[in-house]
């Protein structure tokens, strides 16, 4: 990768240690993706905010780099470990809270917007089509490319952080050429968000960087988010397009048999001890939808709903938050189902959710069994 004289100086440490680290990361990712140069990006979204995921080494790294790193572009951040409004209700130790607060402080110092959300695309308006951004958080990267028509690679926590510090990213892969090399024919009829989640998980496993999906007419936001999140979980694919006439060289089918295979891999319980909704976090549209579905009903079990703080505040002023709470939901902001320290084996053995991504991490990281159901089935079975 060709660097300008100024970039070269930064890589050699002439502009301080933070920029040197950032350019070292970008040089490696540029080399890895055969980039010729770095290009400006206009928005970075970084992951690696939850102490549960980055641990002591991550916390120390951020404390050190934040001494002199400052973000050069708008930078939003992923969810952290808890909602400070309800943290005392959960059994978190002092060390966790102290380390999490240190991480929050480090990002603040570097100039991050305290969004604590995995759906930055529902908090901000999307920039102009074709804008180069740098999104870690796999669901957000896939959403930005596929629905938002922006340009980003499926960035890592460090490559997005390096982009936030430098305002640049290697010009390669999906930033340059995002034409699908594989086409998946959707053969499952009457799909809901769970079906699209299962399709996404399958697609992530078989497709490379970009995939075409045929046989799908339209997807609502819930289905889109579900598919982006599950695709990001199972693979390295960073974009999908709905296209019945793709000229992709490889073609595969997603039928009932494949659907069942993925479902059996992720569904390990007949029912859950509690319910979590929101991986990705719920947006306003999903919150209002859910409030409507729950009219006159209430959950029979504990139900946690994860949403960004900005969305919770809107939902509260519009009356929806109150309606959801009356139906027995607990609203949680700044955190998410995935890698949450709030749902553990100490309290429950199994969780019901409609999120494939949530299921994967609840199982692998939290060691819980998962009961997968669509939202409408959850409302039918778990409320009265």
């Amino acid at each position: 990768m060709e660097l300008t004289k100024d970039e070269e100086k930064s890589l050699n440490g002439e502009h301080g240690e933070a920029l040197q680290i950032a350019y070292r990361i970008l040089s490696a990712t540029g080399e890895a993706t055969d980039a010729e140069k770095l290009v400006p990006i206009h928005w970075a979204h970084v992951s690696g905010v939850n102490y549960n995921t980055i641990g002591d080494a991550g916390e120390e790294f951020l404390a050190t780099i934040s001494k002199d790193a400052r973000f050069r572009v708008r930078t939003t951040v992923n969810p952290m470990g808890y909602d400070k409004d309800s943290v005392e209700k959960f059994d978190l130790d002092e060390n966790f809270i102290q380390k999490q607060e240190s991480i929050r402080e480090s990002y603040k110092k570097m100039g991050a917007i305290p969004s604590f959300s995995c759906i930055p695309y529902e908090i901000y308006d999307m920039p102009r089509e074709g804008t180069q951004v740098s999104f870690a958080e796999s669901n957000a990267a896939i959403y930005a490319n596929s629905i938002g028509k922006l340009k980003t690679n499926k960035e890592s926590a460090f490559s997005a952080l390096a982009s936030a510090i430098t305002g640049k990213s290697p010009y390669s892969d999906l930033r340059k050429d995002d034409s699908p090399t594989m086409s998946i024919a959707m053969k499952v009829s009457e799909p809901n968000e769970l079906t699209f989640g299962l399709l996404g998980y399958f697609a992530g496993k078989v497709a490379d960087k970009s995939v075409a999906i045929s046989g799908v007419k339209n997807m609502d936001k819930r289905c889109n988010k579900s598919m982006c999140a599950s695709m990001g979980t199972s693979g390295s694919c960073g974009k999908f397009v709905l296209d019945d006439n793709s000229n992709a060289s490889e073609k595969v089918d997603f039928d009932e048999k494949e659907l069942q295979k993925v479902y059996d891999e992720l569904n390990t319980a007949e029912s859950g001890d509690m319910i979590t909704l929101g991986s990705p976090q719920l947006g306003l549209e999903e919150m209002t939808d859910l409030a409507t579905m729950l009219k006159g009903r209430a959950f029979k079990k504990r139900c946690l709903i994860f949403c960004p703080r900005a969305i919770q505040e809107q939902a509260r002023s519009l009356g929806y938050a109150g309606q959801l709470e009356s139906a027995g939901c607990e609203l949680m902001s700044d955190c998410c189902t995935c890698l949450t320290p709030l749902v553990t084996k100490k309290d429950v053995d199994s969780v019901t959710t409609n999120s494939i991504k949530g299921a994967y991490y609840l199982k692998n990281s939290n060691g819980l069994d998962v009961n997968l159901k669509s939202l409408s089935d959850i409302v039918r079975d778990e409320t009265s």
Partner: protein
Amino acid sequence: MTKKTIVKGSVTGKVLKSSQPINFLGTIDKKTGSITDQKHNLSGKSIKGSILLFPHGIGSSVGAYTIYSLKSNNVAPLAMACQKIDLTVASGCALANIPLFVLSSNEYDSIKDGDEISLG
């Protein structure tokens, strides 16, 4: 011999070869280096001190922090080598200074689990 070097270094060691891709978040214990995902073909094995061969990284962008943590906790592999590089593995190894190589498919296929090899 290697197709490409992403993070420089030269190592000699024993190969731990995975037939499946690796999601570094939630499937590896960053304190011990053991693979905790029961469905993974390396389930229960430790990647510490190995030359870790795997097709490529998948999943979470935060896996880069796991790679960095493995190194900080002294349980990282000596080096990693893949068939295809993704940004999570590349950036994690760059920051942790773990040598990282892309191998040609012939070379990748010819190296077996347990082999003693030198890279870099």
